[in-house]
């Protein structure tokens, strides 16, 4: 027994603690994680990429308006969306792919779990903060750019397109947040983890149907295999969701998207393009949670 009086009124069992108290713990851990994120190089990397996207938006917009005659805000946002499809998975993977393994390796988990903290509290805080740090800047950036662009170029803000783009981006970020967390909890060696992260990104951006059609022609892959691989790729599906509001053309959507759009319609394409990445991300997140929720913490 300690000679000092015990802290008053705090239930000892984290599993049966009252809901407000669990929120309090979650909030405390989230603030701590936010402190980590705000002072990490990853955030700088993230900010630099988002800044690059913004610059791309301006450059493309100026080129469109100055050389070809401005062809519409949607066209510029379309260019932005293509860049997002390539960059968002990379950002999510770099932000989450080593968060748990690093904390395990440098003693952070050991110190944290010597406090009355449940595994769910920790994992919830990490997920919320990392995903929030990825998505919230985009939530501000995209509408801001659209509004600025509309003021500069005198075009109407394409709110419908923006909403679709934000939904698809949110789903794509979640997809790779889940994959990153799964790698982070399952692979402890930094070099191996980095290899898996790069592999996940390369597969995501390489298995778009344009690339797959090239492979099909080169190695005589059956068309069904190309369609299946493209359809299973969350990056491809998010890309199609982003483009689902555009005029369905083979050149824009690619063969898989064009076929899907022709057979099922653009609304279905959008829904599938958002739901499938969400499902993939949730699967990865569940894998990560299963690993973290049972077994050794260090």
């Amino acid at each position, binding site marked *: 027994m300690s000679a000092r009086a015990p802290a008053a009124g705090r239930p000892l069992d*984290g599993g049966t603690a009252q809901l407000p108290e669990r929120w309090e713990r979650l*909030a405390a851990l989230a603030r*701590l994680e936010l402190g980590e994120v705000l002072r990490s190089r990853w955030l700088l990397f993230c900010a630099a990429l988002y800044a690059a996207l913004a610059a791309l938006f301006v450059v493309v917009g100026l080129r469109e308006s100055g050389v070809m005659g401005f062809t519409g805000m949607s066209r510029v946002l379309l260019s932005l969306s293509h860049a997002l499809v390539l960059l968002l998975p990379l950002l999510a993977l770099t932000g989450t792919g080593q968060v748990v393994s690093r904390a395990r390796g440098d003693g952070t988990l050991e110190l944290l779990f010597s406090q009355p903290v449940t595994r769910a509290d920790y994992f919830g805080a990490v997920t919320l903060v990392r995903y929030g740090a990825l998505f919230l800047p985009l939530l501000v950036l995209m509408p801001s750019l659209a509004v600025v662009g509309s003021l500069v170029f005198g075009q109407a803000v394409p709110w419908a397109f923006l909403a679709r783009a934000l939904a698809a981006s949110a789903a794509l970020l979640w997809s790779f947040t889940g994959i990153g967390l799964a790698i982070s909890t399952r692979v402890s060696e930094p070099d191996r983890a980095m290899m898996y992260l790069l592999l996940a990104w390369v597969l995501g951006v390489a298995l778009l149907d344009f690339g797959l059609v090239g492979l099909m022609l080169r190695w005589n892959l059956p068309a069904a295999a190309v369609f299946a691989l493209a359809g299973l790729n969350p990056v491809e599906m998010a890309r199609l969701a982003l483009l689902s509001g555009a005029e369905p053309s083979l050149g824009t959507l690619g063969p898989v998207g064009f076929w899907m759009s022709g057979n099922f319609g653009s609304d279905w394409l959008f829904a599938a393009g958002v739901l499938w990445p969400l499902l993939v991300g949730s699967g990865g997140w569940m894998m990560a949670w299963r690993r973290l929720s049972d077994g050794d913490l260090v």
Partner: protein
Amino acid sequence: MRVQLNDVTKRFDGVRALESVSLDLAAGDRVALVGPNGSGKSTLVRAVMGIVRCEGTVRLDGLDPFEHRTRLAARLAYVPQTAPQLGATVGEVARAVATLRGLDPADIRHTAADIHLDLDALGRRPVRTLSGGMKQKLLISLALAAPVSLLILDEPTASLDSEAREAFFRLFEERVDGATLLLCSHRLDEVRRLVGRVAAIEDGHLVLDAPVSAPEVAERLRQGAWWQDVRDRGDRDGSTLRSAPALTAGGYA
């Protein structure tokens, strides 16, 4: 808090870290855990904290710490040997621990002041930018601010100067009257001032469990302290090595 380990074994990917370790600490016991690097001390500490699952039984006041870790963590405090490289600031860490343990942040601030650490001045600094000694003081402040019934200290004064070490001993005696103590240390002054019993681990086995006054304990501590001295001062010309006492294999560092 009573700590009981019975026939505890732990393997990591087939590599043995602990083998059939049994140890019983009554509530209020103060025990030092000594042994060479890689002997299994950290694994034993982690088993007691419920961070790793082991074969055999570990009980804290009759509860399995792996199954009831959150509940028991509210009653124990831990000072690791080295602080994690946290990007969060000192203030953020102190506030988080205060919230998690239901403490008034002022408790942590006052405890820190007792060990010569000004939390108000350091509040905005990321923990990873602090010196080794400051980090150690912060960890001690976080651990000793809370009323607990089990303290686990892993080389708590390794990075402290003599003045801060004395402040730590004073603070310890003021704050930790009656709590069970598990101390990992090779420092003679720490062991002699803080514990009444020593348990030695080698290659995952408990090889000694005796009062600190026992002759075999004195010999082990002398060897451990000698290795500590080598580590602290270095041995560029080999003179310290030539003056070595008769040592058991492995050495303490």
